[in-house]
C-alpha cells in the first residue's frame, strides 16, 4: 500500500433526515483548517436525504466537495448499511482520512468500517495536527483519566479513521467555496440484510434542568462533594445566578447526579457565560468540555489543576464558599 495513493479527507454528516447534527459541521470547520495545511481536499459525506437548507450549512463550512449517497437502507441509522457505504466509497475513492462524529451511533459504526478496510481507528482526539515528515495526522487525546496526553497516529494504513466527540471543535464556518464538487453515488443496501432493525423511538421527556449545554451560568460540582446531602446548596446558588447545576464524571459514577449533567469530553460539552466549579480537580477530560466566558474555580487544594483553567480562583472549603456566595448574593438582591 502506498500512502501517497490516498488523498483527501472526509467528514461524515450525521443527520436525522431533517437537520444535520452540529458535530459534522464542527468537524468540517476543523478539517478545513487541517486540509489547508496538508493540501488535501475536504469532502462531506451525506448518506440519505438531507434538506437543501441543511446541505447549504455544510457548504458554508468551506468544503471542496460533497459526496451524496442515495439508495436503500439509510432510512434509519443501522450499522450494517452505514458501515458498508463507507467501505464501498473508501475503496472507490481512497481518502486519506475519514472523520465521524463521536455520537453514540458514530462510535457504533466507524470502528466497524475501519475493520472492513483493515485500517487504524482512533477516538476522542482533542487536537489534530499534521506531520509533514510522515504525512500522518497526529490525533492528540487525553489518556489514563486525563493524566497524560497521547499522540496517536496511523503510520502505515489508510484511511486514517477518527471519531471526534461533539463540541470538541468550534463551529466557525470558513465560508463557501466558489466551486463545490458534487459526487453522487447510488449504493443500495438490501433492507432485508440489515441485521439490527429499528422498531421504534421514544424521545426523552425534556427536563429543562438537564439541558445544560447552553445555559448562561453553570455551577459545576466535582468529586470534592462529601455526599448528596451537601448538594442542595449548589442548586440554591445556581438558581440565584439564574443558572443550572452540572457535575464531573465521579459524581455521575457515584450515582449522585444523572449522566446528562456530566460535563466533559465523555459527557456534555457546555458553552456558557459564567462557569463556577466547586471541588473539581481539573482533569483535561473535564476542562475540555467547558467553554466559558468567565471561569471561576473553588477548591480546597491550592495545587489543583483546575486553577490553571480559571479566570479567578478561591482556595477554601467548597461548602463554606458556596454558603458565603449565597449569603452575599441574597444580600445584594435584597
Amino acid at each position: 500500500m502506498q500512502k501517497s495513493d490516498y488523498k483527501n479527507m472526509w467528514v461524515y454528516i450525521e443527520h436525522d433526515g431533517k437537520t444535520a447534527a452540529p458535530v459534522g459541521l464542527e468537524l468540517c470547520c476543523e478539517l478545513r483548517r487541517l486540509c489547508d495545511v496538508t493540501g488535501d481536499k475536504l469532502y462531506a459525506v451525506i448518506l440519505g436525504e438531507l434538506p437543501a437548507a441543511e446541505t447549504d450549512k455544510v457548504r458554508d463550512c468551506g468544503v471542496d466537495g460533497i459526496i451524496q449517497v442515495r439508495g436503500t437502507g439509510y432510512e434509519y441509522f443501522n450499522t450494517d448499511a452505514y458501515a458498508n457505504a463507507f467501505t464501498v466509497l473508501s475503496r472507490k475513492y481512497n481518502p486519506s482520512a475519514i472523520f465521524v462524529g463521536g455520537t453514540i451511533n458514530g462510535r457504533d459504526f466507524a470502528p466497524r468500517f475501519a475493520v472492513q478496510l483493515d485500517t487504524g481507528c482512533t477516538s476522542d482526539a482533542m487536537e489534530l495536527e499534521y506531520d509533514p515528515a510522515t504525512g500522518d495526522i497526529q490525533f492528540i487525546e487525553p489518556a489514563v483519566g486525563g493524566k497524560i496526553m497521547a499522540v496517536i497516529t496511523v503510520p502505515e494504513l489508510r484511511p486514517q479513521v477518527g471519531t471526534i466527540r461533539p463540541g470538541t471543535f468550534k463551529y466557525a464556518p470558513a465560508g463557501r467555496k466558489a466551486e463545490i464538487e458534487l459526487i453522487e453515488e447510488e449504493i443500495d443496501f438490501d433492507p432485508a440484510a440489515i441485521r439490527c432493525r429499528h422498531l421504534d423511538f421514544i424521545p426523552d421527556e425534556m427536563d429543562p434542568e438537564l439541558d445544560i449545554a447552553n445555559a448562561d451560568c453553570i455551577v459545576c460540582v466535582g468529586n470534592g462533594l462529601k455526599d448528596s446531602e451537601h448538594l442542595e446548596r449548589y442548586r440554591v446558588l445556581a438558581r440565584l445566578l439564574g443558572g443550572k447545576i452540572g457535575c464531573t464524571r465521579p459524581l455521575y459514577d457515584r450515582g449522585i447526579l444523572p449522566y446528562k449533567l456530566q460535563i466533559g469530553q465523555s459527557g456534555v460539552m457546555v458553552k456558557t457565560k459564567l462557569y463556577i466549579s466547586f471541588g473539581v480537580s481539573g482533569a483535561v477530560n473535564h476542562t475540555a468540555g467547558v467553554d466559558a466566558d468567565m471561569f471561576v474555580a473553588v477548591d480546597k487544594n491550592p495545587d489543583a489543576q483546575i486553577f490553571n483553567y480559571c479566570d479567578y480562583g478561591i482556595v477554601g472549603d467548597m461548602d463554606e464558599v458556596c454558603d458565603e456566595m449565597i449569603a452575599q448574593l441574597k444580600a445584594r438582591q435584597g
Partner: protein
Amino acid sequence: MANYNKITPEIAAQLRAVVGDKRFFEKDAVDPNYSHDEMPIYGKYMPDAAVDVESTEEVSEIMKICSANRIPVTCRGAGTGLVGGCVPLAGGLVLCTRRMNKILEYDMDNLVVRIQPGVLLKDLAADALSHGLMYPPDPGEKTATVGGNISTNAGGMRAVKYGVTRDYVLALKVVLADGRIIELGKSVCKTSSGYSLLHLMIGSEGTLGIITEMTMKLIPKPICDVSCLVPFRTVEECISFVPKIKLANLDPQSIEFMDADIVTSSAAFTGNPIFPERVRSEDVGASVLVTFVGADEDELDQKMIKLGQIAKEAKALDVLVVATSSNKKSAWAARSSFLTAIEADTKLIDEMDVVVPVDKIPAFLIYIRSLGDENGIRIRNFGHAGDGNLHIYCCSNDLEEEDFKRRVKIIMDKAYTKCAELEGQVSGEHSIGHAKMVYLRESVGEDVFALMGQIKAVFDPYYILNPGKVCDSSFSV
C-alpha cells in the same frame, strides 16, 4: 442556672488579641452553622462570638479570659454530632478546633501517633494506612474530628473486634476551665496509677475541659480483609445469627445489621443496588454484613467456609462475598450512606442511639416499630449488630414540626423506658448532649446523676464549659 456575662467590647478585644482579627468572629460574622449540629430539630442557638484556635496556649489564654468574665465556652469540632452536643445553648463563645488539624508525630516503635484535636477521622485513618498502620475505631461519620470522637467516645463498625475510641486514647493534653494546662495519661498501654482522669475526660463532651492534643494508639494494618453479606427472611432470624458468629470463634471485625427498608433507601440514594433486596427468589427481610481480617486469603477462606456452615444452619438465604476492591468500595459506600439516605428523603428527623443486649435487638425493634405505627411516624433503623448498638430514626415528611416533636416525644419516652427494661444504655456512641439528658437521668438514677454533677463542679465551678450538657440540668432549654 449559672450567671453568665455577655461578651462586652472590652472582652471581645481581649479575645481578639489572643487569636488575631482573622480568627475572631463576632455577631453577624459568626458562621450560622455554629448554631446547630446535624440535628437542627433540637433547636438552634447562636453564639455571641467564635474563635478558631490554633494552639494549646491560645486555648489557655481564651479560657483565662472567659473564666475571669464568666463567659460560656462551647467547644466545637466539625459539628457532625447528633445530640446537640456542640450547640452553644447559653450563647457566649464557640471555640472551634478545626484549624488544629495537624498530625504531629508518629512513634513507629511504640505504634503511637500524636495529633491535634481538629484532625478529621478520615484523614487520620488514611494517614495511618500510609504508614502501614491502622487506627481501629471506625465511626460512620468520617468527617468528624478525632477530638469530637474522643469527647463522645465514638464507637463505630469495628468495635466488635477492636473496641471503641476510649481504647485507643493513651494521653491527652487538656486545658481546664480556668486556663491551666494539664496532661493526662502517658504513652504506655498499661496503667494502675490512681483515678483515671483520662477516662473521665473521654466522653465528657467538652464539659470538663478542652482537649488540645492527644496521643493515640495504632495497630499494624491488617494484611487482607473480606466481607460476607448474609441475608435472611426475617429480622429475628437475622439477629439470632449474630451470637452464633461470635460463638463460632470467627472473630469478625464488624457485624453490621441492615433491614429491607434501609437497603431500599440506600440503593435509591447511591444509585447502586449492591445489597440485594431479593435472593433466590425470596424477599430479604434483613441482612448482616460480616467483615473478617486475616494474614492471608486462605485464613479468610476458612473463616468464610465456617460462616457458610453456620449461616446454613441459621436458615440464611445465602452467603454473598464482597472480595473485590470495587465491590468493597460499593458495599462500604452503601453502608456509609445509610444515615444520609434517610436524611435525603426525610424532612423531619429525630434519632436514638441505644445499646441493648444483642439477643434483645428483635424485641426492641418490634416494639419501636409498633410505636411508630401507633403514632404515625416512619421508623428507619440500622446498626452495629455485633454490639447491640442500634441507630433508630423517627422520620416524617408530612407532619408539622410541633406535631412531629410531640409524637416523637411519646415514642422516645416509651422507647427509652423499654430500653432500660431490657438492661440497655441510652447512648452507644452519639452521647448525651442536651437532647438525651432526661433519658440519661432516668437511666442512671438520681444518685449517679448527682455524682456526675459533683464531678462537673470540681472541674468547672462556674459551669462555663458547654453549659446545659450531659448532667448540667441547671440550664433549662
